[in-house]
Structure formats: C-alpha cells, structure tokens
C-alpha cells in the first residue's frame, strides 16, 4: 500500500517554495502577531503553528454515547479512515483509538488545546447529562459539562456527531433520567455543525470533515444547523420504493407477499416521510443498502426526539403520555362518540326543556295552516 502523495505542504513549506527565506517567514509571523494584537510570545506561537500545521488538529470527545458514531466513522469508504488519520487531519484526542491513557491522554488533549487555541476542530460524540451537577458522566474526575466547556473555549468550530450530540438520542428519551442534553444547548457563540443520525452514515461524517479540510471553510448549514449537502432531502424523497407509495401499494405485515414484492413500508411504520437524511442516496457502508432496502422501515434516526415519536411499527400519530395503544385517532374517535352522545342528550333535553317554545312554534304554524285551509 503506497502512501498517496496527498500531504499538504505546511504554510512554511509553501512560503519556502515561493522563494521566501526563513527570515521573511518570521517577519510575516511578527506582523501577523501584531495584527492580531498578540504579545511577543504570540509570534512564536504563530510561527510554530504555521511551521507545523499541515493537518487540522481535532479533539474528539466522548460523553453519553455508544461509540457507534466512531464506529460508523471508521467505516467510511471514501475517503478511507486510514488516509484521514494519517494524511488529512491530526486526531489528537479520541478515547476510542488513542494510544495514551489516563494522564498521558489528558496531557495530549491539553497540549492541543493550548498550542492550537482557536484553531482546532472539536468533535463531540454523545450528549451531556446536566442533572445532579453532571455526575452522570465523568472523565478524569471532571464532569462532562466541565470537559466540554474547557474544550469548547478554544475550538474553531464544533461538530456534533450523531443524534446524541445533536438531540440527546436514546438517553434523552422520556423520562430522560439523567438530563441528557445536546451540545448546542450548552455551548454558545461557536459555529456548531450538527450531523444527526444514529449513527450518521460514515461517508457523511468523513464528508463533513473533508469539506472543512479541502475547502477551508465550514459547509453550508440548513436552518437547524445540519450540512445542506446531506440533510436537505427526506428519506422518502429519494426512496426507491416511492412509486409503491404513490400507487397505494403497501406492505401490510412483515414478510407478507407485498414485502416480498418490495412494496412501500409506510404501513408497517416507515418514518421516511418525516426524516431528513441521505440514506436513499448515499446509502450505507459504501452504498450496499439502507434500512428500507433491507425490508425494515426507517425509524427516523436522524430526527430530533425520534424515540418518543410513537411506536416504531405504527405510521399514525401517537402522543406520549396516553400509553402505547392510544393514538390521535383513538382519542379522536372517543371524542366523536362522546360528542354524538352529547348531541343526542341535548336533542332530547331540548324537547323536554324547550317544549313550550317548540310547542308554540308548532301551534303557530298549525294555526296558519288551519287559516289557509278554511
């Protein structure tokens, strides 16, 4: 496996190639430092950074999560993760893969936070429990809240990986016993890119990072903060079973004749019509398949609160708090029944209580009728 020639030259190397000397370079750094209002030490810092920053430093924190986002990330096929790790960015801290543990790990993180203040990208996997002073997730003796605050301070941008970091995911489902909270509710004043999904597609995760590395800026986000490139369409809009939906041909129960024909899974609970994700387009694991293609409805895993959006196997609306078997239609039908009964009672009561009124009207009418007859 030959190393692909894609190592970006450092800024310093680039300047040298253009014929600048090291003295020119240092002068440039001093100027930059003055421009940025930094003290003398700032010059060295900038020089140091430019000398040695071909790869963007990344700190990847883990809080309340299941590591499926990291797992999904290493499944990326284009680019493959070995290349990302060795050639594209510098993953300076991630509990899942890093060699160092304990103090040595913390030290690596702190070094990056200091040396690359304002320059590193902070990736967060998992939600932060805020109840009870944050004791439900501690790392190195610090609460997740403290760890996040420290790391966010010097971050250039934050990527919230997966539904956990974007909306709390499963641990935030009712009754959210630990106060699991998404990142955007805790960190203010930093650009936050939300990459929801449980987990997000590996290629989407790699795509977001590669976008930042290759184009030197953050991808354009939609109104909720998700990259437009991957979250602007509903699963339903790109689903290859869509013609069956339009034709009204549905799987009625799993593995029935219609399931074998590949009909639409809407009636067995597919949430594709309400779910924004690239599953139907990029698909999963290098384009092999996606939930619907493998016969199960979309469970809406990239949508906020998808765990509390009613049972998985029912399409119709259902509201938490009424118990699993009551959906809006059941409630509605009961209300309609009660209303009908109320109407009947009212109608009877009318004939009793307003008898005189009605009798008068009838009498008046009959009178006129009689007058006409005679």
């Amino acid at each position, binding site marked *: 496996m030959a190393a692909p020639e894609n190592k970006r030259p450092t800024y310093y190397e680039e300047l040298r190639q253009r014929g600048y000397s090291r003295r020119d370079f240092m002068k440039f750094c001093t100027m930059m430092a003055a421009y940025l209002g930094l003290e003398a030490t700032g010059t060295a810092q900038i020089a140091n950074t430019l000398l040695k920053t071909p790869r963007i430093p990344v700190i990847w924190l883990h809080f309340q999560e299941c590591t499926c986002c990291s797992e999904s990330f290493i499944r990326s096929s284009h680019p493959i993760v070995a290349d990302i790790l060795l050639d594209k960015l510098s993953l300076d801290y991630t509990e899942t893969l890093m060699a160092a543990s304990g103090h040595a790990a913390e030290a690596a993180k702190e070094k990056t936070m200091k040396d690359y203040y304002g320059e590193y990208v902070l990736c967060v996997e998992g939600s932060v429990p805020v109840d009870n002073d944050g004791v439900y997730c501690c790392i190195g003796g610090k609460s997740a809240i403290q760890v996040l605050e420290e790391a966010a301070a010097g971050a250039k941008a934050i990527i919230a990986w997966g539904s956990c970091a974007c909306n709390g995911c499963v641990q935030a489902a009712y009754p959210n016993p630990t106060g699991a909270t998404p990142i955007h509710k805790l960190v203010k004043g930093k650009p936050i890119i939300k990459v929801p999904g449980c987990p997000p597609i590996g290629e989407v995760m790699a795509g977001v990072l590669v976008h930042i590395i290759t184009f030197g800026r953050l991808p354009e986000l939609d*109104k909720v903060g998700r990259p437009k490139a991957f979250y602007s369409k509903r699963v339903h809009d790109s689903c290859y079973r869509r*013609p069956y939906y339009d034709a009204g041909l549905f799987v009625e129960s799993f593995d029935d004749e219609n399931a074998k024909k590949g009909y639409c899974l809407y*009636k067995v609970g597919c949430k594709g019509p*309400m779910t924004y994700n690239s599953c139907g387009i990029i698909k999963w694991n290098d384009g092999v398949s996606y939930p619907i293609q493998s016969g199960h409805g979309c469970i809406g895993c990239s*949508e906020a609160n998808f765990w509390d*959006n009613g049972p998985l196997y029912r399409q119709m609306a259902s509201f938490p708090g009424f118990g699993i078997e009551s959906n809006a239609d059941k409630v*509605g039908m009961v209300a309609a029944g009660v209303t009908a009964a109320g109407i009947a009672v*009212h*109608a009877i009561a009318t004939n009793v209580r307003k008898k005189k009124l009605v009798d008068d009207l009838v009498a008046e009418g009959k009178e006129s009728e009689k007058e006409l007859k005679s």
Partner: protein
Amino acid sequence: MKKKGHYLRRVFVWQLPVRVYHWLNALVIVALCATGYLIGSPPAIMSNVEASHRYLFGIIRFIHFVAAYIFFFNFIFRIYWGFVGNKYADWKNFIPTNKKYFQQMWEVLKLDIFMMKGKENPSIGHNALAGFTYFLTFIAFLIQCITGFGLYASMTDWWFADMFVWVSNVFGGDFALRNWHHAAMWFFILFAMVHVYLVFYHDYVEGRGEISSMGGGWKFIEEEVFEEEKA
C-alpha cells in the same frame, strides 16, 4: 311574544360571498378530512398491478393538496371579507371586544347549552357564542394551514410553500408536525358534528329558517327583535 298574527321580518344576513365561502369551505374540509385520514392510515390493497400503472395514493394526496390550497385562499378571502362585508360578516362578530359580548355568550350558554330557563334573546347574525366558536375555528384553520404547509414545504419548490420551512423546526421536526396536523383533524370533525347539529337545533327551536339562510342569505326575524336591534 307569540301572539296571534305575529309578524316576521325578512333580513338579509349572509351575502353571496359569505355563502360561497361557507359551502366551499365545508366541501374542502370534508375532502381534507377524508383524504387526510387516508394518508394517515391507507387502506390495504392487494394487487398485482405494477406500481407504474397506478397512482392511487398519489391522487389522494393530490386531492389533499389541491383542497388545501383552496381551503387556504378561501380562508384568506374570508378574513378580507371580515373587513369589507356587511355587519354580520364583520370580524367584530368573532372577537370579544366588550363586556356585552361576554354577557351575551353567557346568556347563550345558559339558554341553549345548559337549557336553563330565561328570556330568549335571539340575535340576527351569529350569536356571541357561535361567533366566538368560529373565532376558535379560524385559529384551528390557521394552525392547520401552517402545519400543513410546513409539511408541504419539503415537497415543493414553489416559493409560497417554501415560506413555511421554519415550521418544522418550531415543532421539533416533521414527525411532531405531522402528529399535530393529524390530531387537529379531529377538531374539524368534532366542530362539524356540533355545528351542523346546532344549526338544526336553532332552526327547530327558533323557526327562523336558519338552515336555509346559508342558501338564500336571509333569515326571518321577529318584529320586536328587529325593532330592538334597530334602536
């Protein structure tokens, strides 16, 4: 009151635009409820026809969306008419603005709903309670249009529906949005039941041609009430 030879005045209450609005509204609401229900819980069809030869569900949804547009603009028109129409169409009928409005509401509640005894004091256009109920239905119209177009926004490129993309975020995603949109359907069904019943009720106990008023536009009002109202 009901003396022999008692005299009824014909009063023109519902102008033609109100009547057209009303029946168009009733029609599209029935259509929206029916198609909406089907969208929420489609019937089982076992068929061997290839999908490309059918478009049943697409048609159901198409009807829903067409009806939705009519519903929306009809509703906008009604709001407009609330400012330029006759006094029975005026928006002030719907929004409680003074004490008298509340008093009247209480009266109607006492007499017509709880069936307590008291002096009948029929109104010519809407009674206060009905007016207020319609105000609530207008709010429901609004919610249904906002949630509906919020859902629709992602299915179309037209700038008009696109104006509603924010809705989904406010409701916390399409799923919740759809739940609300679906649940609100039941308001319409319940309203229609009660409303139709009450129209018959009033016709029955008051004998002023309430039902036909939405057809021809006029009601028959007792001379005394007419004089009172004039003063």
